[in-house]
């Protein structure tokens, strides 16, 4: 499997691997054709089923960002890392139940979404994240630096988007996955991913711009209001660090 950087993005972690066919650019048209299986997933799944630790590690390396992103779209950021490991540990003994080994990505994505649901069932806050900007805003660090506060505020806005859009946008903007990669990993059609990215980004821009002129959040503390305001104004300011 070749390794490398997606041209123009340059935001993959050092050492991360990218399948060669993720470079394809011919899937831009809206299509319902399912995304192809990432090369080698089947053999990794089969080997992992047989107890091959390295193979399961390979699946982790390929899918950890996706799992992380799906969780980040649904649960508090502080709990996401633990849940990522939990998802893989839950998936491991159930690999034998995976009927179509080529569908590992959609399979573990579903496990991840259900784990996020379970998180709220366990914490008795079932409807908390969905369209709940104030709660997400509660993650804003009270005395953090301005960039961190901005980041938290922006994440809050992303997470206020409809579920489909926020998941795809987080995979793109936070995890650094490209549209074709998101399609391949999640099993969504490239057309759907493209639509989700485009419409999600459109809604996010609107929200950020609307917020920057004073509508929107009702934070409890002034520090959070200030932090949120910094985030809201991000798109109006220059590209400063």
């Amino acid at each position, binding site marked *: 499997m070749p390794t490398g950087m*997606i*041209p*123009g*993005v*340059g935001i993959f*972690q050092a050492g991360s691997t990218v399948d060669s066919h993720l470079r394809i650019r011919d899937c*831009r048209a*809206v299509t*319902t054709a*399912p995304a192809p299986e990432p090369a080698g997933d089947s053999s990794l799944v089969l080997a*992992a*089923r047989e*107890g091959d*630790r390295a193979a399961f*590690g390979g699946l*982790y*390396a390929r899918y950890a*960002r996706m799992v*992380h992103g799906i969780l*980040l779209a649904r649960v508090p*950021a502080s709990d996401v*890392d633990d849940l990522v490991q939990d998802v*893989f540990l839950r998936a*491991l*003994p159930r690999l034998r*139940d995976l*009927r*179509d080994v080529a*569908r590992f990505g*959609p399979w573990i994505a*579903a*496990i991840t979404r*259900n*784990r996020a*649901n379970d998180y709220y069932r366990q914490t008795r806050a*079932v*409807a908390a994240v*969905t369209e709940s900007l104030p709660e997400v805003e509660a993650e804003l660090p009270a005395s953090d630096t301005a960039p961190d506060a*901005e*980041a938290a505020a*922006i*994440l809050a806005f992303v997470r206020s988007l*409809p579920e*489909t859009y926020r998941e795809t946008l987080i995979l*793109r*903007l*936070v*995890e*650094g996955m490209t*549209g*074709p990669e998101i399609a391949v990993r999640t*099993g*969504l059609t490239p057309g759907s991913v493209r*639509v*989700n*990215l*485009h419409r999600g980004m459109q809604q996010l*821009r609107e929200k950020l711009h609307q917020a920057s002129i004073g509508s929107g959040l009702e934070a409890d503390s002034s520090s959070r209001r200030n932090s949120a305001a910094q985030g809201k104004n*991000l798109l109006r300011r220059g*590209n400063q660090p």
Partner: protein
Amino acid sequence: MKDDYLWDGSGEPDPEIQKLETRLAKFRHQGEAPEFSRISAARQPRFWQRLVSSHWSFRLAAATAAVLFIAAFGILRWSQKPGTTSEPGWDVESVAGTPKVESSAFGKHAGATKLGIGQTLVTDSHSKANISIADIGTVNVEANTRLRLVAGGNGHNRLALDRGTIHAYIWALPGEFTVDTPSAIAVDLGCSYTLEVDDSGAGLLRTKLGWVGFKLDGREAFIPAGAVCATRPKVGPGTPYFDDASASFRAALSKFDFGASTPEERSAELRKILAESRQRDALTVWHLLARVDESERGSVYDRLATLVPPPSGVSRDGILGLDQKMLDLWWNQLGLGDASLWRTWERSWSQAKS
């Protein structure tokens, strides 16, 4: 094209997106792969491999074969008895009163009992129960409920709810947990939901989280969180709606689905539904596309196009002809989930059923 940068990072960089990437990078996955200590270093040899590899005499082989034959015969006879199970059952506990599995009542202090395949769980007006299904989820069973375990294991977990109310919290893979009712089949797509069935067989499904698919004989409904869908015997699932829709909207929808006795009445209710629909009610209007007569489909198309413009790749003629791909594309525009997920699990589920 500016959108290319959002799509795959190519083309002219979009400064706004770059800013967002920079800011949000702090939330990116940084963790290293954990030690998966629970994975076995080597696969356990299969049973037949252990048999072949072990050193045993012909006499021992013959004796073992005889024992296996007798055991298999016994299991076969046992499994053919009604009300017994050939597979491990699901754990059931009493939450209140004394529910019954078949004719055996069990109280709160009796601990967990098993609900086997083919067996029936009944709660009376004073009893409630909780079903735990390993790796699948839990089902809370309300009073005055009767359900059967139809199938369990191998990714196919199926209850039949004859009457009463259940609350399902499912974390299995989408499509692996289904509930038959007298008038529709609820297919879990990763969610929690409440399902009620009355004595006439009419049902009501309310999704709290995730998605549920409701289907009967090709008539299907996608029910996202916050939405409700009624079902009636011999009709199947009605049209789903968000539970914050106006009372008049819901009344018109109920008459349209189940109450109108003439085409004229149905048309009148349809006009009310379309006139009162909010943008959020695009969920309902999308479903109506496949539920109205061809002569009325144009008006539904026009209303939906006003609420959520059709995406590229969707034409009026295609929708009027109920082109499945176009319907799915438009559904994806509603922001309620991706239809391809449902199609994938629906295929898998249908294949497994047949």
